């Protein structure tokens, strides 16, 4: 029963978040920023600065680094745009060739597939693919990017606010809770905070480890841009299950383009991905994300489908953290609602305050 309520509220939250997605995404990114920068603020407090001053110093540094990063990115983009375009076109064409070859090989082995609609839909050259892309997606993509820009500008501001006054706000919220529910509220906030912190920070650490392992493996295999590809695959892995496969396909396409006549390298890439996946499951995940927000695989997969159905691809990314937080809240609220002693203490405390107010 409790889990039905948890799943229902998770889906409802995802649906509602879609309406304020412009606030939810910067909010989540700001939380990541907060958890990453919080140790720096604490280190400055230990060095003798006041908490607010330390918050200002760290956020100032964040602003400075962001501005430098943006300037550097624009500079690099302006000077190397032409070569990037050529490289992208090369790999897109390579990917299309690879798809065409795979399609041919599959059709040869399984003649039934020849009649399939899927087999007829693959564009064979870059020009066709570009036309399809421009017609169908480019204008939409540019509009989406413009739409997201102001929302993303909220991230540094929200990070600043959480670093500066997050703890005071938390204390103020706790202060407004009746005495009888004080400890349970503390427990609830602590559980939510820990779950989110270990999940978000764990995810960042996992991305770093995956990037390093994939980058090293791809470099040893002789694939071009190993670090960039490793990073892209690691970021794609944020999407549970689907992301890892997409990352693997991406790297395989690059390997097929770089070494079209060396199947051993392509198999090497596939093997590398399987090894990194196993390392993730058995070594890195327990080390980083740990048991935070980890559910039974059946529940995870079910929730991924529900998340995608309710909120599309963005729902896939958000469904597990939202489920984790909702589960903690509902379980703790359930404990509070079922605890008669707490409610008796709450009524007693309220009565005492009323009496005091009448007397005073």
């Amino acid at each position, binding site marked *: 029963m409790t889990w039905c309520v948890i799943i229902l509220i998770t889906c409802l939250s995802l649906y509602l978040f879609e309406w304020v997605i412009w606030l939810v995404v910067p909010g989540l990114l700001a939380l990541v920023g907060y958890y990453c920068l919080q140790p720096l603020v604490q280190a400055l407090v*230990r060095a003798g600065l*006041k908490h607010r001053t330390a918050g200002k110093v760290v956020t100032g540094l964040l602003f400075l680094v962001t501005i430098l990063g943006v300037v550097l990115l624009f500079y690099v983009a302006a000077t190397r745009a032409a070569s990037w375009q050529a490289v992208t076109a090369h790999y897109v064409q390579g990917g299309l060739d690879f798809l065409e070859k795979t399609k041919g090989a599959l059709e040869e082995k399984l003649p039934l597939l020849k009649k399939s609609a899927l087999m007829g839909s693959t564009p064979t050259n870059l020009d066709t693919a570009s036309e399809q892309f421009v017609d169908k997606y480019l204008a939409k993509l540019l509009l989406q990017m413009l739409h997201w820009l102001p929302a993303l500008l909220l991230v540094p501001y929200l990070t600043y606010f959480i670093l500066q006054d997050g703890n005071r706000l938390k*204390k103020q919220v706790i*202060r407004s809770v009746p*005495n009888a529910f004080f*400890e349970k509220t*503390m427990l609830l906030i602590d559980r939510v905070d*820990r779950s989110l912190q270990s999940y978000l920070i764990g995810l960042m650490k996992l991305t770093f480890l995956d990037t390093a392992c994939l980058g090293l493996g791809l470099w040893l295999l002789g694939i071009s841009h190993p670090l960039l590809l490793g990073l892209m695959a690691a970021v794609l892995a944020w999407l549970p299950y689907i992301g890892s496969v997409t990352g693997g396909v991406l790297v395989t396409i690059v390997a097929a383009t770089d070494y079209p006549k060396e199947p051993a390298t392509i198999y090497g890439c596939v093997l590398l991905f399987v090894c990194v996946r196993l390392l993730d499951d058995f070594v890195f995940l327990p080390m980083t994300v740990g048991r935070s927000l980890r559910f039974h695989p059946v529940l995870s997969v079910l929730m991924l489908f529900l998340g995608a159905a309710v909120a599309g691809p963005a729902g896939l990314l958000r469904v597990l953290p939202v489920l984790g937080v909702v589960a903690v809240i509902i379980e703790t609220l359930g404990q509070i609602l079922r605890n008669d002693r707490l409610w008796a203490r709450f009524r*007693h405390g309220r009565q005492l305050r009323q009496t005091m107010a009448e007397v005073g």
Partner: protein
Amino acid sequence: MKAPFNFLRVGAEDHRIENLKGLSLFKRLTSRELRELDELLHERSYQKDEVIFDEGDTGLGLYIVVTGRVKIVSSHAALQRAAPECGPGDFFGELAMFEESQRTARVVAAEPTQVLALFRTEFVSLLERDRGIGVKILFELTRTVIGRSRKLLASQPHLPTV
């Protein structure tokens, strides 16, 4: 009337640090350490006869009396004899800092009382990032626990004192 967003003001911080210095549990801490600790302390106010926590509740943290007085009521007579009341500067519920066990006594405000609460999970995270503060607080905590244990043992006629 209280101003909205009162929590955004910083003027009270130094005053609070001065008050914390006067508490026995934190007497070994420097101003810098107290400032770090202050982020973790939660102020609560209780009316006379209001229950702070109950015997059998899961212990989550300790409480320090700032003003007022609290009564300790336990079904274990020996325990009640050991620390029947706490006044300003005293603390109670300290066993919860070491383990998540059930409270062994009920604590009730004997008069309008203000307390500061320190939660185990927050204290543990402080210990992980700054052992210096943790050791100083744990030293004072242990001293008090030993003192109370001695008192408890002394009240038992069949047990030797240590």
